[in-house]
């Protein structure tokens, strides 16, 4: 009877050992996955290319000149890759914020953030120069 119980305990102990090893493997795997998400940050480059593209025909300057913040938000949502959160702030050349409403598609909370400063010159005959700060993060 005692020998039989001892056998059962061995089995339970073996199960515990297997459980411990597998849980450590699972934790390690989850760490690696998180790393992959964070690593996707040539985001700054993507953001800068997006702003340059939008500025190539003067659209970026026109949105800002007209105060069309919702139009700018929608355009950025279309141009940036899916799963990217952005927050854009527009300053004049003396670094005073001029956008009167948020130009963002979500909250940047706790993610690793890529930040870009872009000088936008409007094609308007009255010279206007803006500093655009675009902050980007990948949705976790």
């Amino acid at each position: 009877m005692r020998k039989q119980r001892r056998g059962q305990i061995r089995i339970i102990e073996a199960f515990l050992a297997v459980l411990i090893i597998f849980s450590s493997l699972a934790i390690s795997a989850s760490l690696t996955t998180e790393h992959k998400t964070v690593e996707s940050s040539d985001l700054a480059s993507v953001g800068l290319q997006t702003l340059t593209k939008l500025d190539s025909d003067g659209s970026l300057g026109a949105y800002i000149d007209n105060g069309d913040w919702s139009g700018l938000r929608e355009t950025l949502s279309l141009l940036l890759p899916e799963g990217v959160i952005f927050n854009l702030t527009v300053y004049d050349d003396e670094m005073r914020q001029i956008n009167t409403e948020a130009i963002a598609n979500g909250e940047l909370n706790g993610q690793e953030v890529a930040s870009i400063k872009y000088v936008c010159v409007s094609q308007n005959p009255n010279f206007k120069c803006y500093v655009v700060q675009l902050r980007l993060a990948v949705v976790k």
Partner: protein
Amino acid sequence: MKRLERLAKAKSSGQLLIVAALAIAILIATTTAYVYEVSKEKPATTQSYPAADFILAIKQGTRNAVISALANASNGGEKTVLASNLNRLAQTYRSLNAYGLYYLSYTALNDSHYMDGVWLSWEDTDGLGVSSAYANFTLKFYGLTEKTMLSYTINITTAIRLEGYFTPNGSGKIVNLTCQVFNEGKPALAKNITVYYEVDGSWVPANSSNSLSITDYGNGVYAISFMTSADSGAVQVSVHVHDLRGIFVKANVTCNQF
């Protein structure tokens, strides 16, 4: 005695298994954590894009500044506006300090056509009108790991080419024109077109009372026709165009009988 020892050994071998498993687990976890920490990239709280991207953005900025200056100068502004715009832009880049230090300098072209980098040629009667701005730039970039010097030229030109003739229509004339619009030598669209014709030495706008018709072919070519009761002889026509960038240009042409 031997039996007791064997019993104790047998009792503790399960605990040993758990301790060994724990040790292996800790080893796996610490190795993974170490590899993770070592290979983890630094937080991208500042710019981590290549300097080439930013240089492209600066070229884009200078191009827009030249367009803005030409739009201003061609709509009645001072030609010195180009220098003024570029000075402000260079100052903005100097104060930005993003990813490195940027020094932008420029030289506005001065030659037989250009003055302070701007050339407006509107008065010829050969049907060609040109509004152009030209400046050479030097960009010096001092990054954390690299130094770059780049020279480039920005030439913004809006031009129109007019050709036309008239056909007699009763006591009046029907004037037919073809207007081609170019941006930097490539076909471009116009934002608006205004047509004038000369009567007794002054320019009169052609409008609906002249049955003015402008057909946009969508490829930078516009067919224009209108009627005039002007007296016999050639008809002097002037076409004024704003392109989509707001740059103004005009051209004059003498229309003879077809």
